[in-house]
């Protein structure tokens, strides 16, 4: 297992380096630069913009900029964010925990809810509950994340104002709350973005899991279990579910990148100051160092998701352990 993990880590390093190089070239080739904005202000002249570019070395040839970037990266320096006006490492350091909180909770809840729904549907397969749940999950997985987020925002922040409109905390009251109050405030603010991600990801899990369970149920060992008098609940929960979990484990690996992608829009809609919001800002403002850092972190997260899925495969299926 250790050799396997080391091999995967080496692969991940190669992938990160390749992706960073590709993205470096792409963002620099895209039209515009970090200082091309401010165009509505006639006082910001081309001369001023040229000075800004020179100050950050953007007037140098691309290979020189790339060389400097690699040199800084090797020293652990991710550079300076033009748009946030602080070191990129600080921006990422502040944003990652916020996104991990959101995505981590979403992943756990989405899988728990998805598997639970699939189990409930399997036990009532073909009945109205199953049909309605299938319909709802189909609708939920068809709706883009940002649209679902906007709908929830309008429904539960404006029409029925139960939750705050956005942000991680209350902009006014939070600094004046005690620890308990702050926790409650944060919990209050996370509900809608979390619900958006859970509904979107949970619907996918439910559909996959239901299909996998239905595929397993006609198998001989299930029939044998029933013949031995095992109750239906236990048949599904103990015998069918474990064998039907493989597609969901695969999904876990692919859900992480999907959630990381989806969180970009959800964070924007709910002003959640995590990596998604950083990514949107960085791309729209052509903040090259920040874009690169976001891509590197994203690549690592995706690689980690795949690695996690592979490890879980080996845990769930003993036949793979020696492969």
């Amino acid at each position: 297992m250790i050799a396997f993990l080391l091999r995967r880590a080496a692969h991940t390093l190669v992938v990160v380096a390749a992706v960073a190089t590709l993205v470096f070239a792409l963002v620099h080739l895209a039209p515009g630069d970090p200082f091309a904005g401010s165009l509505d202000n006639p006082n910001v002249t081309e001369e001023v913009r040229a000075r800004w570019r020179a100050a950050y070395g953007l007037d140098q040839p691309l290979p020189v900029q790339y060389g400097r970037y690699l040199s800084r990266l090797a020293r652990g320096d991710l550079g300076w964010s033009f748009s946030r006006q602080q070191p990129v490492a600080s921006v990422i350091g502040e944003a990652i925990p916020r996104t991990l909180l959101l995505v981590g909770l979403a992943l756990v809840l989405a899988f728990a809810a998805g598997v639970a729904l699939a189990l409930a549907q399997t036990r009532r397969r073909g009945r109205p509950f199953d049909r309605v749940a299938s319909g709802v999950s189909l609708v939920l997985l068809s709706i883009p994340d940002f649209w679902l987020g906007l709908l929830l925002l309008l429904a539960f922040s404006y029409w029925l104002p139960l939750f705050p409109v956005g942000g991680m905390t209350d902009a006014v009251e939070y600094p004046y709350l005690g620890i308990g109050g702050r926790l409650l405030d944060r919990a209050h603010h996370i509900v809608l973005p979390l619900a958006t991600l859970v509904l979107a990801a949970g619907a996918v899990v439910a559909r996959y899991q239901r299909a996998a369970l239905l595929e397993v149920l006609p198998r001989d060992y299930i029939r044998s279990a029933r013949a031995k008098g095992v109750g239906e609940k236990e048949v599904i929960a103990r015998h069918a579910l474990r064998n039907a979990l493989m597609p969901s484990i695969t999904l876990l690996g692919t859900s992480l990148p999907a959630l990381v992608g989806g969180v970009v829009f959800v964070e924007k809609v709910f002003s959640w100051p995590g990596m998604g919001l950083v990514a949107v800002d960085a791309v729209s403002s052509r903040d090259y160092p920040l874009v690169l850092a976001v891509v590197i972190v994203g690549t690592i997260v995706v690689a980690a998701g795949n690695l996690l899925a592979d490890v879980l495969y080996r845990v769930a299926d003993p036949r793979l352990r020696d492969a």
Partner: protein
Amino acid sequence: MDMAPVRRNLLAMRTRVGHLLVALLPVLLGGCETQKEKPSGPAGGTVVIAVAADVDALIPPLVSSIQGRQVTDQIFDRLADIGDSLNTTGDYGFRPRLAERWTWSPDSLSITFSLNPLARWHDGRPVTSRDVQFTHQLFQDPDVAAPMAALLSNIDSVSTPDSLTAVFWFKARSPRQFFDAVYNVHIVPEHLLGSAPRGQLRATPFARSPVGSGRFRFARWQPAVSLEVVADTNNYAGRAKLDRVIWTVSPDFTTASTKLLAGEADVFEPVRPEMIPEIRKNPSLRLTTYPGLDYTFLQFNLRDPRRRSAPHALFGDRRLRTALSMAIDRESLVRNVFDTLARVAIGPTVRGYVGADESLPQIRYDTTAANRLLDSLGWTRGANRMRSRAGRPLAFTLVTPTSSRARGRAAVIIQEQLRKLGVAVEIESLDNAAFSTRMQGRSFDAALGGWHLDPAPGIRQTWGSAGSTGPGGNNFGSYESAEFDMRVDSALSTMDPVRAHAWMRRAYEVIIRDAPAVWLYEPLSAIALHSRIKPATLRRDAWWAHLADWTIDPAARLPRDNIGPAPSQ
């Protein structure tokens, strides 16, 4: 089902829960920072401003965004503030701020500012003339690359005969030399920035936690989340009438506007037309409009984008530009895009300027004359009703930034109106950075551009020949007219306001006649406010200018208004 009563009840409930949290948790859980001081009189309250973007910088020489100006205008002071009339000639209307008085030298080549001896930085140190001198050096230092540096080029130096006197020496007399000295320059503390490397100002602790002398002091900033300033209770210019102002950032327009509609924010600007019905039916909100300083235009590139020395194959011809101008129904465009929140532009200027001239002659909407003119130029209609000449179709690409929904909608209307004239327009929507790059590279046929103006028009840079070919020029369409330049130069160098106005009118007549652009619309500034707020005058160049004098009706205060001033004070 009418959800309004339910919504109101739930809103009240949510608010009550929030208030209960604020009131009880300190007692139940401890560790809460409570504020005991109660402001006397009408002072007090919290204003929450919903914005779609964070500040770009908090050190005045580095600020170029609107959000950055909103905040630095509260934390820092100028020597004098422009009056609400926005007069920029001489010192008429300017009000003392850090300088309690000033005197002109007999030859008008220097102005002596006497600083208010009571003025203090928020760390308690006195504001001195050395701070003023240092600030000007900072603004003009090439390493700092201050956006406003070019506007200060007429200031030769600043001398400091004593700690409370700063003398500005000018290279030449100019009607706007007082404006140049004070309007774009917030004074910053030398004792905190003097030793910072000029090219690294953004990396200093000051950039994250600025210390000014304004009526609000910096409290906290969570980048991309929120920024808070609180009343400087001992300020020499008087305590701000609000306790605090908070800017809360929501990059998504819907989210930002929903914060206002849901009662989480008190101020939102700019309001889009589609928000108006929601604002009008919400009794706790009110909409205020006033003339702004923005105008938008359809800009023609008069030079070939691929070979700058040659005129543009289409727009090098003034008669063609005139025909296109005549074919665009600007009244209908403004009504469709803005409803009542904009007016047809009168030229490369705005009605909000002192002495703005609404009687400027315009190229009238006349499709018959436009068709006739194009026919006379040899652009004839083919079988598909579209025009061509010698096998070349009358077609061009119109670039527009995706960041402006209004411009996107205007582009579609223009496309349709010109199609009826037999002109094919292809719309190319670009994100802001790409749009800016195309404009700066003069790599476009036509573009929907816009300018946000200062009280002093920068028309030389935007429409003069110097801005077309000179360094730093923002005349992206390369309109060049010696007649226009001469009239603008005469207007900007004339001390007599009446003659200056007359020269400027003649300059506008020339550029409108030459049609380097179709002057489309001038949006009204529309701001939505919570009805408990009583704003002071909303100045046309900066609605936030008198934020320190805004008040909140004591009888209508929300719990967030009762937090009090900053605990640290």
